[in-house]
């Protein structure tokens, strides 16, 4: 009981029944703690069942060799599927592609998003409308965006891009054939720059205007006050945008599915698309699961930093 009573003082025990010695009864404390937990439990149990259990099952599957089309193929295989994944050049290429696409999309959308945030942070006529329009690309259904880019912009015959570039001597280019990765990154940037803009904008709006004014009085030019005052202030927001953006963009699936279907060849196959193909085209559950676990490990490396940063921001905002 010593461990329990030592933890009691931190608990607000407003309704706990005091025992004879003035200390709340342990049973009453426990009942009180459960009463507090009660409203939390449905959501907690739901999330554990729907998100954690499948993950553990994936881990289980990943140690098995299992093809849905081969009856009786569900057998324990140790690390064989992991070895198979790493031995598959398509998997290694998909891993490299994932890092390339995620990194370039995150960096470019952050640069563009920050620039847009700086613009929208100024006061001018019609700012609300401009801001609203700028966040719209993030709201449009992503596969609708992908389809429109594919058919109306990138199309080698009817596409708008080739039409615009024609006067500059650029011939007919099949963008999704010859510059597939770049074309997908452009679409991702178009979709995610508003996300970055909103996050950076939140940082800019919390900025100390007096410091900026003081810098201006002291003769700092725009570039200097940006580099020495604004940038350090929004640094944490940029980090947050980059981390959250990475976690979401690493899961890119619809863009690849719609724009290129992983092609030409396997040029734009990233890990999510590779995994989808393994499971839904080849029905290799074990290999798909092993690939999934590898994606999780890659994501968690980024997620740990994101969680740490969010917890810091949370402390700052509630302090």
């Amino acid at each position: 009981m010593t461990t329990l009573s030592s933890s009691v003082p931190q608990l607000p025990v407003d309704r706990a029944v005091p025992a004879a010695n003035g200390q709340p009864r342990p049973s009453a404390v426990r009942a009180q703690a459960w009463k507090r937990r009660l409203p939390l439990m449905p959501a907690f149990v739901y999330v554990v069942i729907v998100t954690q259990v499948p993950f553990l099952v994936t881990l289980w599957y990943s140690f098995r060799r299992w093809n849905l089309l081969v009856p009786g193929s569900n057998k324990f295989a140790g690390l064989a599927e992991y070895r198979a994944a790493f031995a598959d050049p398509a998997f290694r290429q998909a891993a490299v592609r994932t890092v390339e696409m995620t990194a370039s999309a995150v960096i470019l959308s952050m640069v563009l998003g920050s620039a847009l945030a700086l613009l929208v942070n100024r006061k001018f006529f019609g700012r609300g409308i401009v801001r609203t329009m700028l966040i719209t690309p993030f709201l449009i259904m992503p596969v609708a965006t992908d389809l429109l880019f594919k058919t109306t912009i990138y199309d080698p015959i009817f596409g708008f891009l080739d039409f615009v570039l024609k006067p500059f001597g650029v011939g007919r280019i099949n963008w999704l054939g010859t510059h597939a990765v770049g074309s997908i990154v452009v679409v991702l940037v178009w979709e995610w720059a508003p996300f970055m803009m909103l996050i950076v904008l939140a940082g800019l709006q919390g900025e100390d205007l007096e410091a900026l004014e003081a810098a201006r009085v002291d003769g700092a030019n725009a570039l200097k006050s940006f580099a020495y005052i604004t940038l350090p202030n929004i640094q944490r927001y940029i980090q947050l945008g980059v981390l959250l953006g990475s976690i979401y963009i690493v899961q890119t699936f619809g863009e690849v599915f719609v724009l290129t279907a992983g092609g030409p060849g396997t040029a734009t196959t990233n890990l999510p698309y590779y995994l989808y193909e393994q499971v839904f085209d080849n029905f290799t559950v074990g290999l798909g699961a092993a690939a999934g676990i590898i994606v999780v490990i890659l994501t968690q490396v980024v997620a740990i930093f994101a969680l740490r940063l969010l917890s810091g921001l949370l402390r700052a905002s509630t302090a």
Partner: protein
Amino acid sequence: MDFGSLGSCYLSVFPCVLDGPYVVQIGGAAYTIPPKFIFRPTLSEYDSVFAGVQSFTKPLEHSIFVTLLSTALVLVLAIPAAYGLSVRPVKRAKDVLFFFLSTKMLPYVAAVVPIFIVAKDLGLLNNEWALVILYTAMNLPIAVWMIRSFFIELPNGLLEAARIDGANTWVEVTRVILPITLPGIAATALICAIFAWNEFFFAQSLTTTNATMSVFLVSSIQTEGLYWAHLAAAATIASLPVILAGWVAQKQLVRGLSMGALK
């Protein structure tokens, strides 16, 4: 500077502007080189979208069903959870919060294999309920974090006053907390609805004929070929509800995207 913003603003909506002519143009005339910017407006493509084998009516219904139901379920689960994490917090509330958040950082693709197999065994393949269950789990962490961030902003004295007046938990929540935080909860619902409406990966993996708008949009375009006007009209219908919801909730969008950490 204003020109800069206006220019970038135009670029951001450019594909939609480009889309405009096709939406209201007669199907066949959409393929012209050079593109025509002057055209005879017609809304005939909108009729065609809702007619025939490739009618969008069913997928639209599925999308509405899945979005509304999963969002309602999210609120039913998230509001009590947020209460238990802010107003009368459990022990180690912060750990629980970060547990919720960490589930958002698990890539969905990693879970799709068992989800597919379980859905197959339960007869939930090609069933909207599978999507309702998954989208609820997908949005629940966001909703818990967001609603909690509204709850902790409630003035302390208010809840104390209610308790002194003899309000029990139910009255406290329904008569005091919810009416005040209603705008925030509405924004949370809109953001969850946006994510559910736009979701593609699970919908593509788990449904075929009972697909939602996102899946149907892709499949119908792939089978119909280059009917741009049809595509543009369909894409507009698929995107419009969410765009409007996003515009309404835009002040709270950043809070949702940053899990309530930013305001």
